[in-house]
């Protein structure tokens, strides 16, 4: 039987109409499938549409064209309330700026998503949140507000919050963007570890090579176009590293370098190119996940 992927983006495009009536394309023809337990990194410059892509995967936004499928169900057809509940149940967000609720304790922040659950999850929310904070090593700071926590600690609280409802999908938007290299490394290690413990798929958006290297599959997003990229392919490794490093410094250089690795990666990673190739993609992702 064909395995149903967790999230699947099919020919997704997103554009907005600007005030002067011109159309701005943010994303173009995105094909992406994320399976349970998958770990994907998406790299791209600022303004390349990373956040929009993440919002589409998180069902916060709807595509202008194409379709988003969640567990085989079309998101387009879902009622708003159901979609909100589905998102709360299955998706955890980690933001670059942490986005913790100011003035609330770490415990209140982590318990917040459980406030939108029902039944036992709702009534046990403080206990569950305490356990989760202990898991991220902040058991002794549960009564601290974000203002009293360091950046790294805040992001750990945010990770605990994202994972407290045991989501199937974790979307991290530049999770280390506001942290120094060392703290960022330990935060990412923790995020990786907890995500794989919970068997949750993790999608990380980053411009940091080291963060991207933790993922099993890599994509590059540029000018709204998503292309797969194999960081682990021996031939492409060095070039890719160079490309990543240059992305921030000299984009036009990076573009010319990255053209090679994209081609090289295609057979390995199997970018979804249409209906015919989809089963192959899913087999591929399952293999990666197992």
């Amino acid at each position: 039987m064909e395995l149903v992927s967790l999230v699947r983006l099919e020919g997704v495009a997103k554009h907005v109409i600007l005030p002067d009536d011109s159309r701005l394309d943010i994303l173009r023809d995105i094909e992406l499938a994320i399976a349970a337990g998958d770990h994907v990194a998406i790299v791209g410059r600022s303004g390349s549409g990373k956040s929009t892509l993440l919002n589409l995967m998180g069902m916060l936004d709807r595509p202008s064209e194409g379709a988003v499928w969640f567990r085989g169900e079309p998101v387009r057809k879902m009622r708003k309330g159901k979609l909100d509940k589905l998102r709360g149940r299955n998706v955890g967000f980690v933001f670059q700026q942490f986005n913790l609720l100011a003035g609330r304790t770490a415990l209140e922040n982590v318990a917040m998503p459980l406030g939108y659950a029902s039944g036992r999850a709702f009534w046990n929310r403080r206990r569950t949140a305490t356990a989760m904070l202990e898991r991220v090593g902040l058991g002794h700071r549960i009564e601290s507000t974000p203002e009293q926590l360091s950046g790294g600690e805040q992001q750990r609280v945010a990770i605990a919050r994202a994972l407290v409802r045991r989501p199937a999908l974790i979307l991290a938007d530049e999770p280390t963007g506001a942290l120094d290299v060392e703290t960022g490394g330990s935060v990412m290690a923790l995020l990786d570890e907890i995500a794989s413990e919970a068997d949750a798929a993790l999608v990380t958006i980053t411009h940091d090579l080291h963060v991207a290297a933790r993922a099993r599959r890599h994509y590059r997003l540029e000018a709204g176009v998503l292309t797969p990229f194999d960081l682990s392919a021996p031939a492409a490794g060095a070039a890719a590293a160079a490309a990543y490093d240059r992305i921030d410094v000299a984009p036009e250089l990076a573009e010319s370098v990255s053209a090679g690795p994209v081609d090289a990666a295609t057979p390995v990673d199997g970018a979804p190119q249409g209906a015919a190739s989809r089963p192959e993609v899913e087999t591929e992702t399952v293999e990666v996940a197992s």
Partner: protein
Amino acid sequence: MTGLIGALGEAWSELRHHKLRVLLSLIGIAVSVGALTAVVALSEYQQQQMAEQSDQSGGRPATVSISAMTTDGSPMDWQAFDAHVNDVSERYGFSYLTRIVNPVTAQVQTPEQVQTLNMRLVDPAYPVIHRTPLLEGRWFEETDAELLAPPVVITEALWDVYGRPDLARGFALTLTGDVAGSYPVIGVTPRVYDGDNEKLATMLYDSYTSRVDALPADTSVTWEVWMPEDGVADIGPVLAMDLRAGVDKSVDVTVSRTDWASRPEAQSSAAMFELITGAIAGLVLLLGGLGLVNIQLVAMRQRIREIGVRRSFGATGGRIFTSVLLESVVATAVAGVIGIALAVAILRAPFVLDMFQGMQDIPPFPMRAAVTGLVAAVAIGALAGFIPALMAVRSNVIDALRF
């Protein structure tokens, strides 16, 4: 269920987080709810006082007065008519019936001189019907009529003439003339108003009539019956017919209602007082509500990101709306409770009770006032929370998360 509890919890935690802001915005609400509650309660007090005062003159609702007179100028046979009234009353099963003769005069020995004293003759039901208060001692009992030394109840002014002697030690009025004798004083009624100087003694009708051959020629007797208010409209005319039935054609019997409840103007004036003061308090409340809307709207701009975060973690639009609305409602409800407590404190203050001096039954803090205050507070909260809640739901999650 969990949704509502969750929303309430969120609202409460939000309020705790912004204590100062909430506090400042709620002072107005608390004060106006307090004012509103106090107005309703004061109006209740005022009505009670008016009712008690008019009970003292006209009797409690429903008091029916029966009087009789001859139309041909011949003297009225009070004894016969009294027996007739008693017969009829027994048939109706009235439990509060009193004869009233006001006044008859007697000569009394005061410390300085012998002087004329007005006396009122009643039955024991009289002070019940008229809610006549006592300063000291007790009212009449049924058995008092049989005592050889008939008891009397005097007014405070008369008591003062004797230097307010202790009733328990045995203080008696000494009357001379037809009803000469010693009359122990068993009770003192207080002054009705400051400077009330009426010197009056109240005696049982039977005590008086057993000592004289007949009532003085120019006096007249009236009867008063206290009956259930809801039946009075039906009983009245029938009672009048029955009373007229057994008497001579030359006797004209009048049956009329004397209590205040039969006069609507007292009630309408109380309603008017409540309406005007209530409207002023309502306006103040509305102003407080506007202030709250203002503050919540400004606060909402700063909270767009928080709402975005909540939305991304599964909060539905309805849930966001409810929690923001509940923030205002919970806040104003708390302010309302504070306002009501304020009103209770004010109404218990000595200077307010002084205003209603002489009230016998101080009504308990009226539930109606508390409910009115709380409902007003919650309503203004819902009104003030509606626009910010709408704004919170309308905000775009994606834009909210971006900045």
